[in-house]
């Protein structure tokens, strides 16, 4: 059997928990109520990530040359589980350390690496991700935002949508079409753009899942130097695919779901609902789902720990994580009866969050297509 938490892993988890109980203020629940995009949590995350960085934990799984400690993926996964379980005090920075940094490591110039990686590793910088567009959701390659090369600059025009956290972000990792004649996967590039570049405007899209969750970002004649290019021009699809593989298994949603489920069970117990076998059965089913999602995520981490390239297992873990979130959100709503309807209540908040599960990271439909084709050899339409 190849997997088990080592002694060191177990004690690392204890260390992380101790650190969390020390660092999180008493009003953490209040601070984190509006999610990572909320002003308070965003501000807190800069302080918090700085503290993590001091311990060397923020990017411990990175190579030491880039500010890491060469720790195993398991160690980093432990941090991820503990952070998610408690409401992600790293705020949006989980994106930096999980996939934006690694993408820069893989494709960046020496200059880009030297500039960006220490900043990410130190915990003081926020990034956002400019991939989706109004006409390009799950189908990212339908993107229209253009960056035309003019001399040693790119001039960007277009817009992005559903951009989380960008109100607080210093940088955006931006997907653009650099060859205006191209279609689909060809002619796409990735740019690393400072959010204070003139011509960038942000509009918040009010969402049901908390403050500052979604935004539109408009680019009007935004000039950036060609040195902002990550990877080769027109070869950006490779860069984004690399990043997405990390993104899709990045969030330990099952850890959050398991904690939610525990609280739900506790509430059910207080209300005497556990006398109802139906309630117990549903809780049991939900628990099995959480554990199933966890164990599939561990497969992905295991591959990563061995340095193997990501496989379609990532999709499995992702779909099951979503299923799990949705199931628990729905269960919360059903168990709490009319009480669940109170805005901001435990059940309400979890239900709203669960609604985003299938939306946030690529449509489940696309992932099921992939699984049908890779695991079952089914033909594509």
């Amino acid at each position: 059997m190849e997997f088990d938490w080592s002694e060191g892993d177990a004690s690392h988890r204890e260390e992380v928990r101790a650190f969390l109980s020390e660092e999180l203020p008493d009003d953490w629940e209040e601070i984190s109520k509006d999610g990572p995009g909320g002003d308070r949590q965003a501000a807190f995350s800069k302080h918090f990530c700085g503290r993590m960085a001091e311990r060397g934990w923020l990017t411990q799984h990175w190579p030491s040359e880039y500010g890491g400690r060469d720790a195993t993926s398991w160690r980093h996964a432990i941090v991820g589980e503990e952070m998610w379980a408690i409401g992600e005090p790293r705020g949006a920075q989980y994106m930096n350390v999980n996939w934006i940094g690694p993408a820069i490591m893989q494709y960046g110039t020496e200059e880009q690496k030297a500039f960006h990686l220490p900043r990410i590793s130190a915990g003081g910088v926020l990034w956002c991700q400019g991939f989706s567009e109004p006409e390009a959701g799950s189908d990212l390659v339908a993107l229209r935002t253009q960056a035309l090369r003019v001399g040693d600059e790119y001039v960007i025009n277009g817009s992005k949508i559903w951009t989380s956290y960008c109100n607080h972000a210093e940088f955006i990792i931006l997907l653009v079409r650099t060859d205006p004649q191209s279609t689909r996967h060809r002619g796409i590039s990735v740019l690393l753009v400072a959010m204070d570049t003139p011509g960038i405007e942000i509009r918040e899209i009010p969402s049901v899942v908390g403050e500052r969750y979604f935004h539109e970002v408009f680019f009007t004649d935004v000039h950036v130097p060609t040195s902002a290019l990550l990877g080769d021009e027109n070869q950006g699809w490779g860069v984004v695919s690399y990043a997405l593989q990390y993104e899709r298994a990045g969030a330990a949603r099952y850890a959050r779901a398991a904690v939610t489920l525990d609280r739900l069970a506790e509430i059910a117990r207080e209300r005497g609902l556990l006398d109802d076998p139906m309630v117990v059965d549903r809780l049991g089913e939900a628990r099995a789902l959480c554990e199933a999602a966890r164990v599939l995520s561990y497969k992905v981490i295991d591959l990563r720990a061995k340095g193997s390239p990501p496989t379609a297992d990532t999709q499995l873990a992702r779909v099951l994580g979503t299923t799990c979130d949705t199931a628990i959100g729905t269960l919360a709503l059903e168990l709490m009866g009319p009480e669940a309807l109170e805005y901001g209540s435990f059940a309400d908040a979890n239900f709203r969050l669960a609604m985003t599960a299938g939306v946030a990271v690529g449509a489940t439909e696309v992932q099921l297509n992939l699984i049908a084709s890779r695991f079952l050899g089914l033909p594509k339409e």
Partner: protein
Amino acid sequence: MAFDDGQQAIADALAQFCADRCDDDTVKALAGQAPGPLWRELAELGVLAAGAPGEEGGALEVCAAMEALGAAVFPGPLVGTFLALQVLPAEERDAIADGRRIVSAGRGPLMPFAPQADLFLEIAGESVYRATPTGPVEAVETLGGEPWGRVALERGELLPHAERGLALSEMAAAAYLAAAGARLVADAAEHARTRQQFGHPIGEFQAVAHPLADCQIHLLASRELARSAAYDFDCSDHSDCSDYSSENEIPKFQNAALIARLSARASAVEATHVCHQVFGALGITTEGPAWHVSRRIRQLASQPPGPEVARERILGAIGLGLT
């Protein structure tokens, strides 16, 4: 089952009223608001009065109205009002039917429209009581965008005709839910026809189309069941209706209302799941096309009479069938 001309006229008139006075932006803007001028305008059309015994109209008229209102997710204490009109004495009905007095009907302590309510009805099992607040009403913002309140109630007089009141309000909720669900499905289908991904409208993908079709089936059936329950309710007033299940202890209209509610609740909630999948991120914006509909469905689906009452009645109804 089709409405007769008079009932259809009610549905058409209300659809027009909603188009004129209660479009999506209005619904969104009214979220969390107390029943106001719009509620009284609706009442002045005589829509609420149709739910009072002995008035012009009857359950089928209420059903026709609720279908139109549900399709527009018209806000307000509709369900509680129909309950009240059946259980309160004649002299109290006018002020309610006119929209002057607001009814809060529920199991407590969390009560719908409580901050604005002039009158509280407590539903306990199959009984309905008058109730009086024994303290202040603490306003509660809800998932569904209805202004609720938490309030301690003292139980008063046991009211008559609870079985008719509950059945009428359940049927009304069923008609509203089925219509709101169908409208959500129609909007999602429209989105699926126009939204392109991977070079195709997403409605071409069976993963999108089939769940929508499945919702449509269940919602249409729920609509029919609500109409059928309304018919049975009206029938129960007359002797010339056949009632082949009359041997049962429980009146047919009660079972029919319960069945309609169970069916509408399940199918409308399922429609919110499916349609939010179809709308994707659009669905979770407050400006978007789905949230103001799905939150109302969620709210109405959680309202009393809840599962306990349903369960008791199911136990009574279980032997119904055709025999």
